[in-house]
């Protein structure tokens, strides 16, 4: 049987509530086996054998906070999951572990990749939210290309104007260009014609 916890945004740990109160409170109630976040009353899905442990209804920053909290919590606890991955991917991972020493196990490899991807998703979401609040903080492609050059100690890092000019040229033809595309173009432009 589920433990029912009362939850408000400002709270992390709630108190048990009677079922009638749960029904009345609806979305403000969380249901979970641990004192974690969830935002509304749900029923287990009949199509899935894994007990639902989260619900939708969080806003972006609540989701970010919850993901960060989970990423920083004890990773020693493990769970079996019914998550399905392509068989070929599973087999490739097994070979990578066994023959290439990519990780100590396929589980470790999968967990590390998942963690890195989650961290990236969190950072992207936080930056997107920040830029929604402060549109003037949005970097241009030129800004990103300069930043990429600086982080790597690229020879063009000391020539930001050249990089920005290259960004304008690349963006005019390729609106989805990446900072690295700009650096490549700027580098190519810097090579004197023979």
């Amino acid at each position, binding site marked *: 049987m589920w433990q029912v916890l009362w939850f408000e945004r400002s709270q992390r740990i709630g108190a048990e509530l009677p079922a009638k109160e749960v029904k009345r409170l609806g979305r403000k109630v969380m249901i979970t086996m641990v004192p974690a976040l969830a935002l509304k009353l749900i029923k287990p899905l009949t199509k899935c054998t894994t007990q639902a442990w989260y619900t939708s209804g969080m806003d972006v920053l609540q989701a970010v906070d919850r993901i*960060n909290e989970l990423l920083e919590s004890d990773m020693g606890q493990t769970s079996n999951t019914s998550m399905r991955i392509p068989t070929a991917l599973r087999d490739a991972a097994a070979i990578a572990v066994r023959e290439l020493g990519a990780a100590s196990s396929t589980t470790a490899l999968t967990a590390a990749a998942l963690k890195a*991807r989650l*961290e*990236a998703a969190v*950072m992207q979401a936080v930056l997107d939210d920040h830029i929604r609040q402060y549109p003037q*903080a949005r970097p241009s492609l030129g800004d990103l290309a300069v930043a990429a050059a600086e*982080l*790597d100690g690229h020879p063009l890092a000391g020539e930001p104007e050249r990089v920005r000019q290259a960004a304008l040229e690349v963006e005019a033809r390729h609106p989805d260009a990446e900072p690295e595309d700009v650096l490549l173009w700027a580098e190519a432009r810097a090579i004197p014609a023979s």
Partner: protein
Amino acid sequence: MSHLIVLDNEAVQALSDPAHKKHVHVVSHVRVVADRKSRGLPVTVSVPTTVRVEAGWDRTMPAWAFLNRLRIADIALDGLNANIAASIRQDARVSVADAHIGAVIAATTATKVTVITGDPADIRRVAAEREVHVVTV
């Protein structure tokens, strides 16, 4: 190839304040890091805890929520790092926070290190022989 990016006080200030003249500059660095992480590249952004002290970055204060959410990891000044930092501070005559950055640079196993700073000369001094990319904000 792992890449460690270290923020110093000026970078923290610029990132935390949307009105700071270098805010977009440091946001650009973080955006590039996020893009690289999403492509599976092993890159992390960190802040030495003494830099946090200098910058006034208290993780429990709502004012710092934006930076807290960006998964910028603390690097604590533990006993080992304190010994290295003490030596660097004596030799280079820099602040405690800069000496801590030097200790981080000396102790890291990352193959590439970048420091985003307002004082490149001090960072080059504390980095000593270690190759470090220094980004000036």
